[in-house]
């Protein structure tokens, strides 16, 4: 029974999962999560330690470690690294097998990924020109409008005259909000406007990755700020939110690791067989 780990070194958090198989089926045994800080290696070990702890296992038992995320090359003890996009696709596919599109609303960059029925990345589009659709932007807006992030969703629902945000630069979009405020527009209408513009931009990205009638939403801020609802209303689609979706990338990395590992094994076995004869 193979034992391996996937570690996702994100810009703010580092997440790890410990994975094994159960009658050939991958199973998560433990999860760990720490702040990334400056030293990637340390954060990775810490997260891994947590995950192993939860699984009640010892590190030396691990056969294979796959790293992903911004700091993937910083994990000195990795066996392989893959990008967070590849990992997200595999992870989401494992959790929600029939999903065809993934939307990742990250800190500064929103990303849409179209995947095949095997969980392979078919096509992806990042919106790195316009961070006005990013998580950081909503956080700032909430801060400026003096509302808690988790209230944003509810408030925006009670809007009567949504005020769209047209600017395609996060900073100028902030000025726009400020202008709205000084024009006396209600917080609700502004928040709803932000949500709608954000959904529209995401929609444009998703069109380019051939989204059908559903998508899987990952990325922490997005969930808190009630964006899922906005997406459903605006784009008329089903939005899946995998449980503990922060770990999707770590999981995806682990799954790819498993692929490599089992691949290597069978190769090794066949070689062994040759020598046997």
């Amino acid at each position, binding site marked *: 029974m193979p034992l391996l780990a996937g570690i996702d070194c994100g810009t703010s958090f580092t997440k790890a999962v410990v994975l094994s198989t159960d009658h050939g089926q991958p199973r998560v045994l433990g999860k760990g999560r720490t702040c990334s800080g400056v030293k990637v290696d340390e954060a990775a070990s810490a997260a891994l330690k947590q995950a192993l702890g939860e699984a009640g296992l010892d590190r030396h038992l691990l056969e294979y470690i796959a790293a992903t995320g911004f700091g993937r090359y910083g994990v000195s003890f990795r066996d392989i690294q893959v*990008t967070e996009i*590849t990992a997200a696709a595999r992870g989401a596919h494992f959790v929600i097998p029939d999903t065809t599109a993934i939307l990742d609303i990250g800190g500064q960059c929103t990303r849409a990924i179209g995947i095949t029925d095997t969980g*392979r990345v078919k096509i992806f589009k990042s919106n790195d020109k316009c961070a006005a659709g990013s998580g950081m932007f909503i956080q700032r807006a909430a801060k400026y409008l003096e509302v808690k992030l988790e209230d944003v969703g509810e408030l925006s629902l009670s809007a009567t005259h949504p005020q769209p945000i047209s600017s395609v630069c996060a900073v100028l979009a902030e000025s726009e909000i400020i202008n709205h405020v000084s024009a006396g527009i209600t917080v609700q209408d502004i928040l709803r406007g932000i949500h709608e513009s954000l959904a529209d931009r995401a929609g444009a990205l998703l069109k380019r990755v051939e989204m059908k009638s559903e998508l899987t939403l990952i990325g922490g801020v997005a969930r808190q700020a009630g964006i899922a609802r906005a997406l459903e209303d605006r784009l008329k689609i089903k939005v899946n939110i995998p449980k503990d979706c922060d770990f999707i990338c770590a999981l995806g990395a682990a799954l790819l690791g498993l692929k490599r590992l089992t691949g290597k094994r069978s190769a090794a076995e066949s070689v062994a067989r040759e020598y046997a004869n």
Partner: protein
Amino acid sequence: MFSELFERTFDNCSALHFPSVREWKLADPGRKVIAYFPVYAPVELIHAAGMLPVGLSGAGDRLDIQHADARFGSFICSIVKTTLEMGLAGHLEPFDGFLFSTICDSARNLCFVMKRNFPQMYVDFLHLPHNPSSPAAAQFLAEEYRRILTELERLGGEVDDGALHRSIALYNGNRALIRELYQLRSRSPQQVPTSELYQLIRLGNFLPVEQHTALLEATLAEFQSRNTKPRDSIRIVVEGSFCEQPPLTLIRLVEDAGCYIVDDDFVIGQSWFESDVPTEGDPLLTLAKSYLDRSVYSSVRHDFRKPRWDGLVDKVRRNQAGAVLFLIAKFCEPAYFDYVPYKQELDRAGIPHLQLEFEEKSFTFDRLRTEIETFVESLVFD
């Protein structure tokens, strides 16, 4: 090691103050140096006039833009700004003239902004025909070349047909070698790393053609003698960097991510003829005809007889490439536009592709690296 030699030569040549150019001038101060903006420039005319043609290809990350931003504002590509900045910062002092051409709207306006800011220089604008199907085009271009040659003669003295023919022959030889290098790379990319070939070709921007040709020969031999073992990589064609040039690091990054670049349009101006220009007859007319019928396609050359998108699909097939990587300079409108028909034709032909944006001056690539690696991973993992 060969590649180190490159980098030294490359760094030396492309240094902000153009040391190799100053050397050349120092050897005989009477001689003139004419800088040309990418992409298509009639270097033969400049060479025949006894001058050194130098390709301006921006300043990479070597220069902070301090003045040019104020002149060109937002939404304008970097090479336009760095070129003006080099001038305003005094780095273009060794040049006697600048030659621009009809490649894009920003570059054209740059020509006249340069004219205003450097009145003592010879600044000229070459109109390359956009209507090759017109029987009148060749004659027009020949006369356009004549006009420019007359200006050059005013700077450097009489030029006869013999001299023009000799220059044409020299550049024919140079380009033939470049074609051979490209073919070798396509046959066995492991022997010809693009990061090296790229520098080699770019050196043609700075070095006198005679020197460059010699260097090409030497390098070709060196490449042929290598027996590097192939890596597990995907064969790709790079498209879109015909004018502003990507940082070397980015090209390395593409290779490290597991790609063999088997064809590209880097520094396209150095290899803009698909076959030799005839060396008899009226040299200006043959050059003109060659531009119309013999020059390689690019996003800044318009010929509605043969669409560029066919050119790309063709290129992919010819090189048995598995994918296309669009490396597009930020705010390069011609490249942005062509991406659409290119994309449509590639999709139709079932050829996977990825579009990335760069700036000559960028030097952190985490975002791009993630996307390139994902692209490769999506092609290798089942």
